[in-house]
């Protein structure tokens, strides 16, 4: 008899669940929580959790609370595809992630076929060149960032030749392929082209190669931990030429790991909690308070991704999956309309972004923003 009551209670709960679910909007984040992309993926996930907590505390999106689910991709294309498919089968309102370009390439057709917006953290230039109308970046692409760096190398550093050090993965190779033509256009000679491995521990040989090239400046495009190791090796080899990089080279993690060797490093930064924008700094404080470490650009990207979805939903005044992508495409999100976007952001028709970015330098173990660069199409 007791069994019958249990079954009846379970049935009752099952029937009432859809009613509860109606008060929520489900977002699935598909991200690298293990494997090679775990550092970036964890930052991205934490940024998303922070945004969801903020939005839910303020009443949710159009009165609905966000239910967030994270699926680990193990940084593997096959698993990423399964996770994105699962997200769509489970009725996600939009797909958030992944961060690495390879897994994005493996999964973007799934969201495209389902006509659901996918907001990704990848920076590889090729992603938005495939005509996918449902893919949106949360960071500047390498094609947007590299011309700014080439200009900086030519006008400010006044370099006639540059050594390029890059990590041989989709991120590093994409950056290397984007900077070299820009250097050529600027009339800067490529002194030496040094490929390094992801997870490489010893950079002494690479530092010697760079030193022997006698380049006027060094462009470093490595992941965080490798950047720190390279900077230490370069210091040991007595390299004194300007070190220039993009976002990762000047990140908090690199400064922490490289110590003194990071001082004097300069470069272009897409997103940084140290930028002279109060909303960025406010985000940085909230992130640090919640997770007890400093957010990198991936944390900010994850945070903004949720707000992009919120803005598009409130703009269309209803929950329409396809409408999210249609609304985002070609839109400019102003901080006055949606403070959570942190900085005015224009989303181009192909899913690329345009927004202000920054020049920075590491001084006394801290990233200092030295200039704010305007949008490409203000």
């Amino acid at each position, binding site marked *: 008899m007791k069994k019958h009551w249990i079954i009846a209670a379970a049935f009752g709960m099952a029937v009432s669940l859809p009613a509860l679910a109606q008060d929520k909007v489900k977002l699935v984040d598909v991200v690298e*929580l*293990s494997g*090679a992309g775990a550092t970036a993926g964890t930052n991205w996930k934490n940024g998303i959790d922070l945004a969801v907590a903020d939005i839910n505390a303020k009443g949710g999106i159009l009165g609905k609370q966000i239910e967030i689910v*994270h*699926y*680990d991709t193990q*940084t*593997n*294309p*096959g698993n990423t*595809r*399964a996770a994105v*498919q*699962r997200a*769509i*089968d*489970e009725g996600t309102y939009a797909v958030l992630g992944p961060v690495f*370009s*390879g897994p994005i*390439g*493996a999964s973007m*057709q799934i969201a495209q076929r389902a006509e659901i917006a996918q907001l990704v953290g990848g920076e*590889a230039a*090729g992603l938005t060149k*495939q005509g996918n109308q449902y893919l949106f970046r949360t960071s500047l692409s390498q094609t947007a960032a590299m011309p700014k760096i080439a200009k900086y190398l030519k006008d400010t550093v006044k370099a006639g030749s540059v050594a390029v050090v890059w990590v*041989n*993965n*989709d991120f590093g*190779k*994409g950056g290397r392929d984007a900077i070299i033509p820009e250097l050529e256009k600027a009339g800067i000679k490529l002194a030496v082209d040094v490929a390094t491995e992801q997870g490489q521990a010893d950079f002494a040989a690479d530092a010697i190669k760079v030193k022997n090239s006698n380049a006027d400046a060094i462009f470093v495009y490595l992941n965080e931990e490798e950047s720190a190791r390279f900077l230490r090796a370069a210091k040991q080899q007595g390299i004194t030429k300007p070190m220039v990089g993009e976002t990762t080279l000047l990140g908090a993690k690199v400064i922490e790991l490289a110590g003194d060797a990071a001082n004097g490093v300069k470069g272009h930064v897409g997103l940084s909690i140290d930028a002279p924008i109060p909303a960025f700094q406010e985000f940085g404080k909230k992130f640090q308070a919640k997770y007890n470490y400093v957010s990198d650009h991936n944390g900010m990207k994850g945070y903004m991704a949720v707000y992009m979805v919120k803005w598009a939903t409130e703009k269309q005044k209803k929950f329409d999956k396809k409408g999210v992508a249609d609304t985002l495409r070609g839109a400019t999100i102003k901080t006055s309309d949606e403070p959570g976007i942190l900085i005015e952001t224009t989303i181009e028709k192909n899913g690329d972004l345009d927004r202000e970015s920054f020049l920075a330098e590491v001084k006394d173990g801290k990233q200092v923003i030295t200039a704010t660069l305007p949008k490409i199409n203000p």
Partner: protein
Amino acid sequence: MTAPATHSAAPAARRLSLPAFIDGTLLTLVAAAIILWFVPSGMGRYGTYVLSLWLVMSVAVMGLNLTLGYAGLKSLAQAAFMGIGAYATALLTSKLGLNWYASFAISGLLTFSVGLVLGFPALRVKAHYLAFVTLAFSTLIWLVLRNEQWLTGGVFGLSNIPRPSFFGLKLDGALAFHRFVVVVTFLLAVVLWWMIRSPWGRAFTALRENPIRAASLGIDTRMYTLLAFAIGSAYAGFAGALYAPLVEFIDPSPFSLSQSFFLLLMVVAGGAGYLLGPFIGALLGVVLPEWLRFAGSLYLIIFAGIVMLLLIACPQGMSGLLERGWNRLTGKTGGSR
């Protein structure tokens, strides 16, 4: 020497008055293929995709099971062979416009030939030393896949890999392609089942148990060592030829050395030397982590815990565990593989 793989099931089959060549393993394969044909109808695209991925990985594990489980040769290059098959199929179908069936055959031939060549070191070195040789080969293939961008797309990989059609019937949909994978996997499993029952299979097992005695019985150990490597590699090539159109995108990461270790784990956890072991091993490796997703960020820890407990409880893997249970039920003492 262990009893030959198939004979113990034969008396039972005769009792049921089935032809002598039919045994429990074959009946299981047929029943599983029928179930897998219909099962995804009620599943979403995700469930169907995971089932397909499981079968594709099973094919690669079947090959490694032949090399390691039957012939006792420790190879760490299975994922690299899978990569060769996947890239060959992707390039032939998407760049040269060749149909999938021809690409599948070429992928198998290519990996068979490379496997044959890699088998030569196995004639001179054994155990850990052989593992190191295959490890070096695996790294070499991964470097080629990653660095030869003009051919393989390098770190950016190859996208938009087409799915095959069957007599004009397009297999682009998740369910249609899954059924196609079921048929191909079934055929490959039946070929292996036949091979294991044949004198070849007995020769492979003899090679594993005692190579010197095998040689004294007149088995050409040199040829069978090479064949075990080559056929095992060809199965990895076939798995790659199915993987590329399944994911529709490939880059070097699924074919790295760590994936070869993962395939090795699937062979061991499923039960090395058991014909159905690869399916159970791939189920543990591919489907179990998906089932454990409800546990959130703890899912990989739980997965690792389950695998460790399993191997402590039964070093022969899941198949060994099932066999022990079956023997206890039926009061048998021997084992059938």
